[in-house]
């Protein structure tokens, strides 16, 4: 089999293994149902991996209940670990798929939508695994593996194109900077958005005083919010650089650094929304929930720019079509 063949096979394999990982993480969430319902009051401290369902001040829990709870927590732990193990298995396979794709094309593997999505998702999973291995933070597992499954699934079915060289306008160093920065910041924005989703879900549950199941095992909303912020704070300057590098490239390719092309415009809209997010976090009355909603709007704009504009609107950037 040649590189292209290896790449295609491993890419599909990775998508399937991510699916299993997602199922394992879903089972982890499901198994946590009914546990931790009387979790310690909102705002108190809960570690992610420590697991033990916060032995709160609740004297009447009889032994059978406690035993059932312990068994459930063991199951949660087991499913969670399998999820991580499967992700650890899928990740190198995914990496091989991306690298062999580059070898097959004899260039960096980010010349079209298929390659861009698969590379970006590799970065997302890398960030997740970093959090798991270095900080013991497993709680993004479900959302990350779901995103990886859906994303890679779309990539291999809808966006797929065979290996081909680049069109002349992409032969530019700035294009490489542009696209690497876009893939990295895209990955970080997505991680930030996933954390923001969990923040909103947990925050809502806390407000209703019904933090049970897996939610109770998540870190505090404050910590989730902090992780979301860090992801965005990392992504935003990179995204700024992405747009700048794109503009410099456009100046070389077309003699104008900005032309209000649909793709350029949506990148700017995305940038402005994230600038809004950062402002929101520093504005009384906007931090917390509203900021998280802005983060989600930002990621929607990002995806729309990436998929919607490529498929719906024609512009100079539709070079990749798919």
């Amino acid at each position: 089999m040649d590189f292209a063949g290896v790449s295609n096979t491993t890419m599909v394999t990775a998508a399937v293994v991510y699916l299993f990982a997602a199922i394992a993480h879903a089972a982890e969430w499901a198994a946590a149902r009914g546990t931790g319902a009387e979790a310690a009051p909102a705002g108190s401290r809960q570690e992610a991996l420590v697991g033990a369902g916060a032995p709160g001040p609740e004297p009447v829990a009889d032994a059978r209940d406690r035993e059932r709870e312990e068994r459930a927590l063991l199951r949660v732990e087991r499913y969670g670990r399998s999820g991580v193990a499967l992700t650890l298995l899928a990740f190198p396979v995914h990496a091989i798929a991306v690298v062999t794709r580059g070898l097959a094309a004899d260039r960096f593997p980010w010349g079209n939508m298929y390659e861009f999505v698969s590379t970006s998702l590799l970065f997302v999973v890398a960030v997740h695994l970093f959090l798991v291995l270095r900080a013991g933070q497993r709680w993004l597992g479900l959302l990350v593996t779901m995103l990886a499954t859906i994303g890679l699934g779309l990539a291999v079915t809808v966006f797929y194109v065979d290996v081909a060289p680049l069109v002349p306008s992409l032969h530019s160093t700035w294009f490489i900077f542009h696209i690497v920065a876009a893939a990295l910041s895209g990955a970080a924005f997505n991680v930030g958005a996933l954390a923001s989703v969990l923040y909103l879900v947990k925050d809502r549950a806390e407000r209703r005083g019904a933090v049970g199941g897996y939610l109770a095992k998540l870190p505090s909303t404050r910590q989730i919010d902090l992780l979301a912020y860090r992801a965005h704070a990392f992504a935003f300057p990179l995204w700024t650089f992405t747009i700048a590098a794109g503009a410099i490239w456009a100046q070389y390719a077309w003699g104008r650094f900005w032309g209000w092309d649909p793709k350029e415009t949506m990148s700017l809209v995305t940038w402005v929304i994230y600038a809004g997010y950062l402002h929101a976090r520093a504005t009384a009355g906007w931090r917390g929930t509203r900021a998280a909603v802005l983060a989600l709007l930002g990621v929607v704009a990002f995806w729309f720019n990436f998929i919607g504009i490529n498929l719906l609107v024609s512009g100079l950037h539709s070079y990749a079509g798919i």
Partner: protein
Amino acid sequence: MTTTEERPATEQQDRRPSTEAPRSLRPVEWLRWLWTNLTSMRTALTLLMVLAVAAIPGALLPQRPNQPFEVEAWIEQRPTLGGLYDAVGLFDVYASPWFAAIYLLLFVSLIGCIVPRTRVYWRALRAQPPRTPRNLGRLPASARATSSRPAAEVLEQAAARLRSRRFRVVVREDSVAAERGYLREAGNLVFHLSLVVMLVGLAVGALGGYRGSVVLPVGQSFANTISQYDDITAGGRFDPTSLPPFAITVEEFVAEFETGPVQQGAARVFRADLQVTEAPGEQPYDYTLEVNRPLVVEGVDVHLIQHGYAPVVTVRDGNGDVAFSGAVPFLPQDGNFTSAGAIKAPDARPEQLAFQGFFLPTAAVDELGPRSLFPDAFAPELFLNAWYGPPREESGVPENVYSLDVTGLEQMTTEDGSDSLRLRLAPGESVELPDGRGSITMDGWERWVKLQISDTPGLGVTLGSVVAAVLGLCLSLFVRPRRIWVRARTTPDGGTAVEVGGLDRADARTGLEEDVEELAGHLGEEHDTARTVPVGSGEDGS
């Protein structure tokens, strides 16, 4: 997060409007109220969101400057909605007054925000680290230790240690106050200021710059004077006499397309070989123009932005004289370079002649009519209709070179008059026109290139401001301001009790407890952690 003392300007701005609004105000007060509102963080946030929303229609609807024909087609298909959209400027969003109003307001707000914050920052830069809180144990992180050395010595040691960690340090009677991370706010100010500078750079470019284009068949030359441009747009301060007097000859143009099964027809190579003369009388030199490799002559950029085909034809008139001969650029209509154009021979006698139709680089005729199947010229053919009419005086009115204005002309028909005359020519072929009106010969074909010639002053300012913005942003987001206090008191038993407390002022705090612990450990013989509040649940000052 933001503490009250930390960002006096913004916090006050956030609060003041609501307390002042309800009273009936004198004009001056009213203006001030307006100003404080306009420069508040909340307004900035709102304007940013409004800007994001306002920019979206321009990404989804065709825009006049980029796609004039699509705009007309859009309006034709939905006349009512199209008219309405047109009236409010949705087909040219980025030049519309309401869009300008939004970003100008945003920038006014931005300036109104930067100025007071710079003043506050300037003062903070020269101020001493803040007074030591009475109870260090109530800070987000704190630790205690005891030492057998005298209090003053411990404080000296603490100050030295903190200084080596790049804190600004002041020693007071029984305590040390230290602060670091001043660059954060500086980065923030640089970032916001860069946005203003960038706007200035853009304005300079828009006012003093120009962008024009010219279509040149291979073998032809262009001299950089305003009359030789096909089209040109320029800002209000552009001076046409300032064009540098260079000349360009297109010697060759090479285009290659993918012939393999994957992405068949996709462009692979575009390359134009030019001969450039920078000024009359100077030695010409060769330059290879490619898509990402513009030519720069005296600060003016020359870009290769489009290419196409130009059939080379010879038209003979009814008298047998050559009425026209040369390459005629046709305009590509699709990715396979089905190209439309017109060949005009107004000098033909006794009647003038004109032709309109298609050039197909790889011609095929199927139920859809004649069209091209591949962008490269593998089987070039010319499909034309023919027209004739009385000679016309040169009117001087500029005409579209790619299409034919048929007023006053009559279309030629087949012998029996039942159908319009259709000509089909391959290179080297010639066709006699009916009724002895003359003939047309397709001698061959050439390629043409479209060169864009542009100058954007202020580019350096714009680029510089973007670089400054990114650097400022990184400082602002990654520098973590931190305050640490140490208090040392002599205890009744003659030892020294050391207290260390710390406070982080940015969101992304990590390592505060570690720093505090470590300092306490360094200062005392034995220490215990009185209290460290975990990351994430510490008190926010606001």
